[in-house]
């Protein structure tokens, strides 16, 4: 099971990154055309488009359910209180 999860994570990250690079690199000067391998049909054609449609909050919950997130950790609260705000504009 852990090997399967490892493989799932490695493959999904690889193809999601490739897709992201294609989107963001388009028309940026100085970047190259990414290498276009023919492998990973399922990941490129099915997984990536599906993943992109799912909202982040749902994805986060799914990662928790699949126990992909870390256990035994208590992140410090990211709630410093009300941030200071500039004087209200007239």
């Amino acid at each position, binding site marked *: 099971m852990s090997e399967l999860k490892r493989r799932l994570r490695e493959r999904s990250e690889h193809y999601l*990154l490739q897709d992201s690079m294609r989107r963001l690199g388009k028309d940026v000067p100085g970047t*190259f*055309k990414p*290498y276009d391998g023919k492998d990973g049909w399922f990941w490129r054609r099915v997984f990536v488009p599906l993943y992109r449609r799912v909202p982040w909050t749902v994805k986060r919950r799914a990662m928790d359910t699949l126990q992909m*997130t*870390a256990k035994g950790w208590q*992140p410090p609260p990211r709630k410093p209180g009300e941030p200071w705000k500039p004087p209200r504009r007239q």
Partner: protein
Amino acid sequence: MPERLIVIGGGGAGTATATIAKRLNPDLKVTLFTEFPDIAYSPCGIPFVHGREIDNFESLFLSTVERYVEDGLDMRMETTVTDIDLDRGTVTARNTHEGFDKLAICTGWVWEKPDVPGSNLPGLHYVKDIRAAMEFDKQLDDMKRVVVFGGTPIGVEMAGNLAHRGLQVDFVDEGPWALSELLDPDVAEPVHESLTKRGVTLRFGTKVEAFLGDERVRAVATSEGELECDAVIVCLHKVPSAQLAEAAGVKVGTTGAIMVDERMRTSKPNVWAAGDVVEVPHGLSMLPIRGLTGSHAYAQGRVAAFNIAGQDLTYDPVWIPWGMVAGDYTIGGFSIGETLATAMGVPYVVAKGVGVSRARYYPGATRTHVKLLAEPDTRKLIGAQIHGGEGVKERADFLAFAAKRGATLDDLAWMENIYSPPIGALFEPIAIAAQNGLASLREKAAA
């Protein structure tokens, strides 16, 4: 009988664990095993010695084996641990068994090997071990052309430094820009420009298909043709050396590294792990990640040592400030950029700004480009990328800390900053970026 601690691994995490545990509990009998003949040097400095920015390899050593022995450690140099038996509480090295009460696994990482024909040919070099680097450095004197394979941070450093030394460098990676798994394309642009200016030939979007040669590599076959070379420097991904731990029944996570809790405890009692062999959660997503920096390894070793010594210390999820010199540029950031955020599907807004590192009129002032990523609803900071000359590192460190504490674009837009012409401009580039971001959000809301 004193309690016995065995530490496996002599890198940043291993030496930190061993020395700090001993300092906190002088009664502890600490034995450190390392397969290498050297200890306490900075492997991160190796590319800069090759590039002749640093005079010699000896400067990279921070301490000596004798010094550790003087501090009371039992140092087992060039001694590979081949087995861990957690039921009996022993490790095996050189066919003898050593007992322990507590164990720290700090076995680090190895380079990913290219999965193409010819990858066992002599002439493929991996930057890690200082003695191998010393030998390679002598060979470099007789070389004219090298291929750097892998657009990772070490790849960028090696390409830039070897070009600086006067070698003809082909820099090859499948990704469409340098550091494409980390860096955004707009930040990569000046890196490309700077490397090209140094004489590096960039061959991105190019797949390595084979290494060619009979007794030694003489060329690299790529999707774009053959590249002749005298050597190849392979700079792919770091792979955690977790096999020994996994074979002993210690749990390994989704990254292939050892799972630890915030006290650096593994899944087995009285066994800790730290450094590049462990995975720790990212502060934003809580997804485990691995392959961080030397400062992370040292800090994790410190946390392990405190807990081994009976004190209570926890390690926080990481926000990963990073920075490096790429050609003549400094780049840096923390957490995620747009490339990773888009890949993960994390919603974000961007705030960009450009400022100067000193007063505009003061000699040596450089432009500092800041890009901040924030959550659209709360405006909390979730990532940044910075490029410029001086001050990139300090800004990346500050932003990572600010994000960890939940700072928002509003906080940063109105942050205080030092104005002193030789060291700081009137307007802080981070504040400029945050103010631009807020203005753009206001415009969008009004539209």
